[in-house]
């Protein structure tokens, strides 16, 4: 065979490359979806203002100080100029006017809103990050290793470790430590070469340890069912009210209580991906399971997770605002949009801007996340793609 022939054969068999790359196609579809585009622009603006707000309002001598109390200037309407003669020069608002007015202690609402933007942003992203991480882990476990059964010894080791930790937490030092050490010794024993060797032919009286019990899938999915039995806002409220008030607790609690949906998506995707040819090919190439999962399956399963994560950020921001509104949010000197609104509700007829500005800000940001997420869902839906 001559080189030209080979080249032409190659040429014929080569699949026609798509005219556009994946990103161009994405962008083309995205531009047509006007609502999603608006959502993304607002999202970018919100991100920028939260970052700028963090810079402007933190530090020992911030430019816009959200905590300066000017009692003689309380409840000034938006865009009003400060009374110059009664204020110290350092207490004047940096823009020369109170852009969003002042609250009942004379604090600049604009500075407080800037500070709150960062809180909303981090609560949204960290909470959703936690829930997506747990969801992918649990869903992936159930989808990929779901058919395997758990051996009795594994259940026993888990019980011993958990019991040890529980005893330690309850204050029984020696018993807890002994159980923990025993559990770890057992674990190391079973993964050590000697343990492996012994396990292939255990003595008859120890054979019951190898008895198969539940399937991994059943275990995880029943756990998801249990978590879904709790009314989520009520659960979050209970836990946040019992824990000491802090922004990290709120993020963690919201994240820990909202991963069930992601886990279900990922499990369903994994169950269908597992049967596909590229996974079989990867297996035939001798790749390890972890590599198959993280390099080949997760990228293919990520699209619905992204969509639900975007919408999850919106609902996490709403939840945080609701908690702040009920008085369980971030502790007082720190401003969040929820607690600006909740402080302002007492002056709703005298100073409506204290209600309307944070409320409208929450509405706009949450709306932009929702629109962006729904736009993503439409775009990533392969049925809407043009054949090319």
């Amino acid at each position: 065979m001559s080189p030209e022939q080979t080249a032409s054969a190659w040429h014929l068999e080569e699949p026609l490359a798509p005219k556009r790359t994946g990103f161009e196609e994405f962008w083309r579809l995205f531009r047509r979806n006007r609502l999603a585009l608006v959502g993304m622009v607002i999202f970018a603006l919100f991100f920028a203002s939260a970052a700028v707000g963090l810079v402007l309002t933190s530090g020992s001598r911030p430019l816009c100080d959200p905590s300066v109390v000017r009692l003689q200037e309380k409840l000034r309407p938006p865009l009003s100029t400060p009374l110059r003669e009664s204020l110290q020069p350092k207490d004047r608002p940096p823009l020369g006017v109170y852009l969003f007015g002042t609250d009942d202690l004379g604090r600049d609402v604009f500075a407080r809103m800037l500070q709150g933007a960062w809180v909303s942003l981090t609560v949204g992203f960290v909470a959703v990050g936690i829930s997506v991480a747990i969801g992918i882990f649990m869903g992936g476990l159930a989808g990929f290793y779901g058919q395997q059964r758990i051996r009795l010894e594994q259940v026993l080791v888990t019980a011993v470790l958990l019991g040890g930790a529980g005893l330690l937490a309850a204050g029984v030092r020696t018993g807890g430590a002994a159980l923990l050490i025993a559990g770890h010794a057992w674990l190391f024993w079973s993964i050590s070469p000697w343990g492996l060797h012994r396990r292939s032919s255990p003595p008859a009286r120890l054979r019951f340890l190898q008895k198969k019990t539940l399937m991994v899938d059943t275990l995880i999915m029943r756990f998801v069912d249990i978590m879904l039995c709790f009314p989520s806002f009520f659960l979050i409220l209970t836990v946040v009210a019992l824990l000491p008030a802090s922004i990290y607790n709120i993020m963690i609690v919201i994240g820990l209580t909202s991963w069930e949906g992601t886990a279900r998506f990922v499990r369903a995707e994994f169950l269908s991906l597992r049967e596909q040819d590229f996974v079989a090919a990867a297996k035939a190439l001798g790749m390890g399971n972890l590599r198959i999962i993280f390099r080949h399956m997760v990228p293919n399963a990520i699209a619905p997770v992204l969509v639900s994560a975007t919408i999850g950020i919106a609902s996490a921001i709403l939840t945080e605002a609701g908690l702040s509104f009920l008085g369980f949010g971030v502790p007082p000197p720190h401003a969040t949009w929820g607690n600006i609104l909740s402080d302002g509700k007492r002056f709703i007829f005298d100073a409506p801007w204290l209600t309307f500005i944070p409320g409208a800000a929450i509405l706009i940001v949450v709306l932009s996340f929702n629109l962006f997420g729904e736009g993503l869902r439409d775009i990533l839906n392969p049925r809407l793609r043009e054949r090319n």
Partner: protein
Amino acid sequence: MIAFIGRSVIQKIVTLFFVSVVSFVIIHIAPGEPSQVDPLNPKFTPEMVERFRQAFHLDRPLYVQYAYFYRDLLSGRTVSWKDNQPALPKIWERFLNSLPLFIVGTLITWTISFPVGIRSAIHRGGLYDRSSTFVSYVLISIPGFFFAYILIIFVVNQFQVPVIGMETFGLGGTSWLFRVNDRLWHMLLPSILGATGGIAVLSRYVRSQMLEVENQDYVRTARAKGLPWEMVHYKHALRNALLPFVTMFGLILPGLIGGSVIIESIFSWPGLGRMAYEAILARDYPVILTINFMAAVLVLIGTFVSDMLYVIVDPRIRL
């Protein structure tokens, strides 16, 4: 069929057991004790606290407390720590207050979202569809408490609709007609607020179901036969699009407890959500756990009912 029912009932009872364990552990592992809620109160002497701890078994290990608590709950003897009243009658009273709000809210949700969703599916891409889509996104995104205050400002100024409590104070001697009317006025705003989120979500769902059915072959056939369009849309398409919604009757049950905390506390409505909120504030563990247990029971009953309805409605599913 019987086997399916039996299996799912057993499964749900096992789930319920684990829910009871998890909620008990969550609430008792959290730092702080109910006896420390009010350390400055001079009545809380150490002896008082000790007596309190003994009376409510707080000095026993956790699993003993668990057994005591659920024995009391299942035999209906749970006592609120706050005022020593039996918890179940208290909860029942609040439940009766929440129930009308829930029923009216659900009725509003279902009567509004179906016409809206169907219409926007039929006129897909038109002005009506796009504006209703946008409005439903706004309704999903608006924080409930913010929307409540907008409505309060608007309504109080314009129509003199009452916004606080369940009834006007001092209505003892008036006729029942007047009292019913008064109650309905008080219910107006909270139930509208409770319905908004539902309307937005449900109308979007109706729209997508309807669109899916409208793209089926038999709808095209019906259209090609020259049937009048209302026959095509309402008889061929709508009937089949309704199928998933039958099952949603079961899934709305848990909304009775979960979704009303904020709205009930804004409107001072003495309902279940507000009771839960007050119990959380007072660390009234028995009441919190009882409400949580009831919520879990409602969720499980809801999923069971919806599974059953699905089997009954959809002839393709055989067991």
